[in-house]
Each structure stands twice: as structure tokens, then as C-alpha cells.
């Protein structure tokens, strides 16, 4: 429902997984397999010489240090900023506007999502079938979508719960004069388990 970039989540997990797998397998192979082990020993001196040569060939002005390290530092700062943006982008996507329509050439009509949310909350909140209910609005593909989540009392049939919520949504359709896409989420959870069983049949 929210605008979390799930492909990015999976990509990050995949990249970290591949990195760990490759580095871990390489380290294990380097000490366990004799051929690889000898190859590594031969390469050690060359790699060290090559890297120290690079560090000497890239002086930063006349300070005597290579600019490779400061460049790595800049990369590290960029990576940290990217990762923080990545974390902050999770779980966004709420919107405060349910309907926006240009009714005349002088202006537009805006219906805030609080209207729809409170109408639905009023209709559902008092029902004995539900322990708790919450209505929120998200933007999905640039369209406002209502999310109605209800926590059922023990033993309430999900069909009945869905019908109750859907009746409320249809009443809202009549009130607004248009249909807003809606998601109904019916959950149980801890509060449902400790409350008394429903007496409705």
C-alpha cells in the first residue's frame, strides 16, 4: 500500500548477500584449497607493490599524501547519504487529499481524505464485530486509495466483516458521488485473541 520501493529493498539484500558470499567463499577457498593458497601467496607481493605504487603516483598537491584516500572518504560519505535516503524512503505514501477536480475555470474542488476517513470511521467504529478499526489514505499510482484496517473479535466470519466494511464504503461512494479505490484489511492479532468471543451467529 505504501510507496516503499520493494525492488530496491530486494536489490540491496541481494547485493549484500552476493558480497558476503563471494568474500566469504574466496577467503575460505584461499586457506583450504592448496592451489588457490599458493596462487594467493605469489600474488601478495605483487598486489602490495602495485598498490603502494598507485599511492605514490597520485600525490595530492605537495602534502605528501595520495588523493586516493580522500577520494575513498568522499565515496563513503556519498554511500552513507544514499543509505540514509534509502531508509527514510521506506513506508511513505500517505496523502491528505481524496478528490481533486477542476470544477470550473476559476478554481478546483478539493475533498480532503480526512472527510472520507472520518465518515468510514464513524460507520465502522461502533460495530461490535470489530475490536479496533483505522482508516488512512495512500497514493497508489498517483490515485488516492483508502485503506480500512479492522481488527476482528474472535470468531467473526471474514465474509461478514468484509460485507460490513463494504456497505460503509458504498455509502461513502453515494456521499462523494464517486468511487474511491479501497483496500480492506481484516486482521486478528493479540487484541482479538484476548477479547471475548463474538456472540453473533
Amino acid at each position, binding site marked *: *500500500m505504501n510507496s516503499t520501493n520493494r525492488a530496491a529493498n530486494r536489490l540491496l539484500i541481494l547485493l549484500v548477500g552476493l558480497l558476503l558470499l563471494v568474500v566469504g567463499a574466496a577467503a575460505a577457498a584461499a586457506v583450504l584449497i592448496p592451489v588457490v593458497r599458493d596462487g594467493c601467496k605469489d600474488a601478495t607481493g605483487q598486489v602490495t607493490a602495485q598498490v603502494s605504487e598507485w599511492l605514490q603516483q597520485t600525490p595530492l598537491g605537495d602534502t605528501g599524501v595520495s588523493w586516493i584516500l580522500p577520494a575513498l572518504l568522499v565515496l563513503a560519505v556519498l554511500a552513507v547519504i544514499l543509505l540514509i535516503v534509502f531508509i527514510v524512503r521506506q513506508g511513505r505514501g500517505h496523502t491528505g487529499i481524496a478528490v481533486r477536480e477542476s470544477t470550473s475555470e476559476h478554481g478546483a474542488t478539493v475533498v480532503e481524505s480526512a472527510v472520507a476517513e472520518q465518515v468510514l470511521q464513524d460507520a465502522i467504529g461502533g460495530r461490535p464485530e470489530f475490536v479496533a478499526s483505522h482508516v488512512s489514505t495512500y497514493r497508489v499510482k498517483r*490515485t488516492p486509495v483508502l485503506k480500512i484496517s479492522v481488527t476482528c473479535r474472535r470468531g467473526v466470519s471474514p465474509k461478514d466483516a468484509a460485507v460490513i466494511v463494504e456497505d460503509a464504503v458504498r455509502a461513502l461512494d453515494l456521499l462523494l458521488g464517486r468511487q474511491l*479505490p479501497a*483496500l480492506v484489511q481484516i486482521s*486478528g*492479532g493479540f487484541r482479538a485473541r484476548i477479547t471475548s468471543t463474538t456472540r453473533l*451467529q
Partner: protein
Amino acid sequence: MSTPGIYRRIARRETHSPRSLLAIVLAVLLIVVIAWLGTEIVIALLGAPALLVAPVDTFTSAVNLVQAPAGIVAAAGIVAAVIGLVLIIAAIAPGRRARHLLQSERTVVVVDNEVIASALARHSSVAGSVDPDNASVSVSHRHAAVHLTPTSGIPVDRDAVTGEVARQLESYRLTPPVRARVRISENGRIGA
């Protein structure tokens, strides 16, 4: 974007895990490691003593990994590789949530499996005339296992229970469909 398209997208996203928690934990760990490396570089450039390990030492010990004790390196490498494999599987696996879609015309309805289970438990306990506490139901992706413990001396009508459970499941019109299996304990329970 049309409503059916939006509904398809919502239905897909509500029944599968976003993998947010794992991704955020990994991102935080990466930030910590990168920030530490950056700090070490700054400290090395200033010529001050390192926090944990200086960048030069990190590099030389990584290059000379083969000379390190084989047991420790191999164990650490294998552990890292296994963690990497688990992460790769987590990234690729669908990550289904314990939820079903309930068919509906006006809205998208997602139901937690435990709500379905608790409704089935109530209906089967009424149909089998056992105490609701003696009916336990677990719902998985395609199966519902109903388990009733009868009250001693009062037999349970299995067909009635099976029929009632099937009728209920049919009325929910779940996606993917769920089939029920009813099991009735041979031993009853006294006073229930």
C-alpha cells in the same frame, strides 16, 4: 491508471512481504561499517593513532590473509558465505504473508489467516457441538486443518462439521482456495 490495475498492484503488495525490516537492518549495518572506515581514513590522514585498525594495516592483513591461521579464516569465510546465501534466498524468494484475498467487487479485501482460522473454529465447534475452546484450526496457504476434541460421551458428527467448514470456506471465496481437513480426537475430554 485504471482501478483494476491499481487493485492488482495492491493485492500483490498486501500478500507479499516488502522485506523492509531486513533491508533497513542491512542498511544500518552498512552505514555503521562505512562510517567507521571513513573515520579511520580521516584519522590516518591526520596522523593520529587509529580507533581500531589503521587503513594500511587493514589492507596488509587482507592481502596476507593466507598467512593467517587457516581454521579461523576458513570458519569466518564459511559463516559469511552462508549468511550471504541466506540473504540471496531472502532477496529472491516471494516472501508470502500469512494472508488470503477475499473476492469482492467494490474493494480489495485481504484477510489474515488467523481470522479465517478463528471463524472456522467457531463454526466447526457449533456444528460439532463441542466447546469453542476444544476446537483448534490452523490455516496455511492452501489447507485448513480443523481439530476437534469431543466432550466425553457425546460423539461428534464428522460429516456435519466437514460440510459446515466447506460451506464457510466456499462463502469466503478465498484466493488461493483453501481446502479443509477435519480431524476428531479419539479420546474425549471430560467436562467440556
